[in-house]
């Protein structure tokens, strides 16, 4: 029984190490002064050698941000954030273009090794020349962009991708190399003044990934970004922009970790996706930021704006997320379904254990005719965790024949946690059909009994049942991620079963 072996292994790993990504890499860093003002925005822009229009764009965002108030409607509680007490720019000091692994900062390499990135990919990540030309035997190649605190440290498999015309690089690089695309699309899905955190991000974003898939190209491999907050008192404000031109296809993975610290750190990212006619984007996230300790001290505030625009006819955007980390998650990956017959999907697993809080969900805006959306959300609360699904399905008057199906299930483990569901349904179209279902329950005694009777321990049984509960979502993940996600589910629930 592989599932059981897996579970045992995971539980053992978890018991030994707790949050095993909680180390801090001692690496030479370059910081901008603490605090947030126009000069910092200018500093970041200058550091990145950005064109004047982008600096203007950032400054406008900053001006907007100053007029905005932090949103307080989510079901999360946290003390006020001092935006002046954080570094808005931190970058590892690196030597340019290492020729072999020896030249790469050994601390950086150690970090990747600890994060479980295979050696071969480490080489690639560290930018060793020639390393990325052949994929490791027996594995599907995955192109990786690693973002360390504020900056992208390496992108792999670039050449192979370039052969198909696929652009995959850090957004700073894209600003230099493909300014026309950045100018056209940056902020076109999430405008600078969209919300408080998006405005903040627009002003101070330091890096992130950029992807462009040309017409008719099916991206030859999975693209992936690995985010890591390392330095103390830094916020991470990455910006990701993915454009899938007509008839193209891409699958993109995102992973995140951070060291254990007693203080809270802010992560306010913005992700924008654009899909043209017949294009399809699959965006998968395994979010495992440091959740804080068992007493709720420390952890990441994950306040993220993710939105995709299905601009073209028959285009498709699919979000899959596994949210196990972060002290607080505030995140609503959304789809604007403009093109006729475009499709939006949202598959989510969110776990809150100890004192974690998650307020997450999606928004589906049906604008074009015969647009379709599917929402499957699985929330698991344990310990003192509070888990909220908050979603909006809005059907415009012109979305004739639009269709939505939503299912939100919550699982409660223990009597000190909470599970909440807040769906909004707004329909202005008579021919649209909207269905919403939500259930809340706990693990049934008979299910547990059945597993226990067959020799599984209580924890194994819970792990098995939880994995079953999340299956509908996990099966949407690419293979490697699905395995990782299953392990994470178990680790996150560690200590919740008594």
């Amino acid at each position, binding site marked *: 029984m592989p599932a059981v072996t897996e579970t045992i292994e995971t539980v053992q790993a978890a018991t030994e190490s707790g949050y095993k990504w909680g180390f801090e890499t001692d690496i030479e860093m370059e910081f901008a002064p603490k605090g947030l003002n126009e000069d910092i925005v200018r500093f970041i822009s200058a550091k990145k050698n950005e064109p004047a229009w982008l600096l203007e764009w950032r400054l406008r965002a900053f001006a907007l941000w100053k007029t905005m108030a932090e949103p307080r409607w989510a079901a999360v509680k946290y003390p006020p954030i001092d935006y002046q007490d954080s570094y808005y720019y931190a970058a590892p000091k690196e030597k340019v273009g290492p020729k072999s692994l020896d030249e790469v900062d050994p601390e950086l390499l150690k970090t990747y090794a600890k994060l479980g990135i295979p050696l071969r990919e480490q080489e690639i990540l560290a930018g060793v020349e020639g390393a990325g030309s052949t994929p490791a035997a027996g594995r599907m190649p995955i192109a990786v962009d690693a973002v360390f605190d504020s900056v992208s440290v390496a992108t792999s498999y670039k050449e192979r991708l370039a052969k198909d015309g696929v652009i995959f690089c850090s957004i700073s690089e894209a600003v230099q190399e493909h300014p026309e695309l950045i100018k056209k699309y940056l902020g076109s899905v999430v405008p600078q003044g969209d919300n408080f955190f998006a405005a903040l991000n627009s002003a101070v974003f330091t890096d992130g990934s950029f992807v462009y898939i040309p017409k008719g190209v099916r991206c030859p491999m999975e693209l992936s970004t690995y985010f890591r907050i390392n330095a103390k008192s830094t916020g991470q404000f990455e910006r990701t922009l993915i454009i899938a031109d007509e008839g193209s296809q891409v699958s993109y993975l995102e992973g995140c970790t951070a060291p254990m610290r007693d203080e809270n750190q802010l992560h306010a990212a913005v992700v924008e996706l654009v899909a043209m006619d017949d294009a399809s984007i699959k965006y998968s996230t395994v979010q495992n930021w440091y959740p804080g300790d068992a007493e709720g001290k420390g952890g990441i505030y994950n306040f993220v704006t993710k939105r995709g625009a299905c601009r073209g006819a028959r285009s498709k955007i699919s979000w899959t997320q596994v949210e196990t980390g972060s002290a607080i998650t505030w995140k609503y990956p959304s789809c604007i379904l403009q093109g006729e017959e475009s499709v939006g999907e949202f598959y989510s697993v969110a776990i809150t254990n100890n004192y974690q809080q998650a307020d997450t969900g999606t928004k589906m805006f049906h604008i074009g005719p015969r647009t379709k959306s599917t929402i499957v959300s699985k929330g698991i609360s344990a310990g003192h965790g509070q888990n909220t699904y908050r979603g909006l399905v809005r059907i415009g008057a012109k979305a004739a024949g639009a269709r939505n199906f939503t299912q939100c299930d919550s699982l409660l483990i223990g009597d000190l946690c909470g599970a909440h569901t807040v769906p909004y349904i707004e329909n202005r179209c008579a021919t649209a059909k909207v*269905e919403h279902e939500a259930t809340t329950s706990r693990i049934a005694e008979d299910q547990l009994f059945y597993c226990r009777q067959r020799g599984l321990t209580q924890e194994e049984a819970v792990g098995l049942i939880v994995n079953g509960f999340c299956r509908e979502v996990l099966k949407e993940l690419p293979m490697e991620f699905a395995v990782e996600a299953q392990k994470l589910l178990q680790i996150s629930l560690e200590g919740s079963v008594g």
Partner: protein
Amino acid sequence: MTVVAQTGAAGFLARYEGLKDHLPGARKPWLNALRADAAAHFAARGFPTRRVEQWKYTDLAPVAQASFAEPLTMVDGAIALPAANAPNRAVFVDGRFRADLSTLDGLAFRATGLAQHLGDAESHLGSLAKPEAEPLAALNTMLFEDGLLVDLPDGVDGGLLELVSVAVDPGRPFAFHPRHLVRLGEGARLTLIETATGGGACLHNPVFEIDVAERASLTHGRMLQEGSGAFHLSTIYARIAAEGTYDNFTVAAGPRLTRNEIHAALVGPRAACHMNGAQMAGEGQHVDTTTSLDHAAPDCASRQTYKTVLAGRSRGVFQGRIHVHRVAQKTDGYQMNQALLLSEEAEIDSKPQLEIYADDVKCSHGATVGALDPDSLFYLRARGIPEAQARTMLVEAFLHEAVDTVTDETLRGALTRALDAWWSRQAAAA
């Protein structure tokens, strides 16, 4: 010198200031304190705007911007009363109890006008309503003049009682804010059938405080059928003790704007609450059902089924919140709301909401929105049923489900007639 009539909140506050020494119970310090407190809340918040989450989908601007007079003089002459559903009925005209029109003799319990018996209401009045949270309850508390007082002693089966509210159109906008107090002693039973009718541009803003003791059972049927110029904004607060039951069935069809807001709290083990309803709106109308259910004790059950049918340029709103407290283990909660859109210009907004803090619970909600199913229509037409009749069959079948669980035949008959009457009017207009 001309006197400018003050509108909205300011108008009501001015009226309270002018009237406070003359309102019923003005010599009772406890009541004065209650009214003054409510007035302070209403002054601070005024009418809720759409920025208030609970009013996101219902715009009270037409109420807030209008200037309402109060029905100062007693209406004389013949008053058209709706057909009686029960032998015992309490009749209110413009919010005032009319003993001359009511038939309440020989009851085994007290049912009468509140204004004359305020001295007996101190423990009940204001015990459930939350003027600090709901501005409409604050407005009601500040200005109520009368209402129904029902008090069933322990173990009494009160049978059927009808509450009739008639608004007589004086030709200008007017407002009344009745406060109804219903208390059932241990093991008591009552079926209360409420009908609201009348014409003109009236604002009918009733507040109910319903207290159901252990093992008592109240069935509350409501037919909100004022004319198309009326605003009906009602707020019900119900508290249900151990093994008690409160069943609410509401048919809302008629007024320009209807808000049917229910706050029920299950405070004792094995208490139960059913909230069902059908709301319909045609051209230019707005219907809103907002429920909030607190499961504050273990082993309680709640069931909600709400149906919305929209025709013409109309808007329907359903907001339903189920809150399961930490102590409320073994809660069984279910909520379903379904909407049928018969027109291209109708809009439905729905917000079912679960807030759960106990783990051993079974809670679910569902929501569906759609047009009449073309396959069902085709099936009926293929069997020789004309389209209009087929539509009627489907719409009626959809609506009747909301009242299927009413066990009292008199009440079910009345509710069903109200549903069908709305649909025949719609069908005739179309």
